[in-house]
């Protein structure tokens, strides 16, 4: 093998050269990746994959595809609490002390009739229960039974102005006390997910009222996306035509911090 290009005694030199080249290339690649990660232009290029994923999944799944539903035999023995464990604002603590009797869900923005709904109002509306898998962006999954009101029912009651494009969920918790004042949790979804039959505002997990850790009194379930889209402690649903004027402009607490707004992957 060695005699083809160079005399045999130079073999080690060649191997060493190749080894060094590979090591150098590896270091350049990884070092280069860190450099590129800091370049806004390159990050923009990487972020373009999100649009591709969103369009591909909407094209293939659209309004119809349903997240798998499980049986009660499949439930996780322990459903992990993640994100905020207990909101600490005085407003939330006051609501919690009265067992959310004074809590109202505000529905406003680009709607025909703004609404203020109590927990009793929500429980009196058509209900949906679903046993689904919750997938965290970190990689873990847990299966739980969620019950609540389909968001479509609420939006049918409020009506939509023609310009409405997104549903924004404003939450009670500050996940971060950021200096720019954007630490309050919020999330948003498009109208396809807003009217999807499995998109519900859940008040119960595993046949019990939501615990504070899981988002009492009301959290969003948007089953075809990752966990951070499932906003907890929902106080207000705002229908809007744009997301760039909220938070840092990316449509959610985690999207404002680099994560995908479309979290179907």
């Amino acid at each position, binding site marked *: 093998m060695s005699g083809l290009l160079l005399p045999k005694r130079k073999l080690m030199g060649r191997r060493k050269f190749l080894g060094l080249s590979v090591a150098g290339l590896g270091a350049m690649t990884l070092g280069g990746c860190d450099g590129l990660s800091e370049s806004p232009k390159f990050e923009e290029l990487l972020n373009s994959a999100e649009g591709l994923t969103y369009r591909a999944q909407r094209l293939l799944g659209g309004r119809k595809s349903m997240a*798998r539903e499980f049986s009660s035999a499949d439930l996780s023995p322990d459903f992990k609490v993640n994100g905020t464990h207990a909101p600490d604002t005085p407003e939330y603590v006051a609501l919690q002390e009265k067992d959310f009797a004074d809590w109202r869900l505000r529905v406003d923005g680009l709607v025909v009739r703004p609404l203020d709904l109590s927990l009793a109002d929500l429980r009196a509306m058509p209900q949906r229960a679903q046993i689904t898998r919750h997938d965290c962006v970190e990689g873990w999954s847990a299966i739980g039974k969620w019950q609540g009101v389909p968001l479509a029912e609420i939006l049918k009651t409020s009506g939509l102005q023609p310009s409405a494009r997104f549903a924004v969920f404003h939450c009670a918790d500050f996940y971060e006390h950021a200096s720019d004042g954007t630490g309050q949790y919020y999330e948003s979804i498009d109208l396809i997910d807003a009217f999807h039959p499995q998109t519900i505002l859940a008040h119960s997990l595993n046949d019990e009222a939501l615990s504070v850790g899981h988002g009492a009194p009301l959290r969003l379930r948007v089953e075809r996306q990752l966990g951070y889209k499932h906003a907890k402690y929902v106080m207000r649903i705002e229908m809007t035509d744009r997301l760039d004027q909220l938070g840092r402009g990316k449509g959610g607490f985690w999207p404002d911090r680099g994560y995908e707004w479309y979290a179907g*992957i």
Partner: protein
Amino acid sequence: MTLLSTADPRASSRSGRRLVQRHALATRLTHWINALCLTVLLGSGLQIFLAHPALYWGQYGADADRPAFEIGAETSPDGAQKGFVRLGSATFDTTGKLGLIRGADGDFSERAFPHWATIPGWRSLALGRRWHFFFAWLFAANLAAYYVFGLINGHLPRDLAPTRQQLRPREIWADIVDHLKLKFPKGEGARHYNPLQKFAYLGVIALLLPTMVLSGLTMSPGMDAILPWLVELFGGRQSARTIHFITASLLVLFVIVHLTMVVLAGPINGVRAMITGKLAISKEDEK
């Protein structure tokens, strides 16, 4: 064979060897794009894994559930912090290598994989995901292009499908012996893949790479709603995540063996053939 014998006149003037066309342009292009994609996907995949360095089997799996595999750090009875890798009930001390890593400041911190192995080098699940999914698209498109070209130009059936003769146990055994003796063909024989090479390449092309794509898609809640059979195929999202990790490990193993073989069989000739398409073969042992 005469069709492929486009001998380079410069090379043939030198004694004992000539250049022949070995790899089609489509093969070379897809090879290097694939190499780039797999490197980035591995580094960014390890970055994503840092966020929850445990693997489970089945539909669900989180902190309260028993992992099949775990990388972490814990405080030992004597008060010292230790990095560990746990596979089933077996625990290995990996302090400094996995689980507990020394940072640039010299201090140990809990981290499944070292900084040099992840993209980016610092901790960022968000950026790791951005890298991963961009290159996942490129990787899948490149793989699809490779299949299409491989079927159109005949590369897959002609160069990679083992011949009847190569499937005979005696041939396979002879090839194993040749590999163990580090005996590689230099002449006409170097223009074809040997049986072990074909098995390895086909294993990667037809099994490992598609498994990476499918197990990766199974981790997407959106794709699970679109293609419910994906979850069935792998026996659950957490099983798919575990298989994604195992398959990636097998690919790393393949690349190590592949690069070793390239070095042993003549790295300059081999790498040049994959860049220019031309392979130098010696005339002496031509049949």
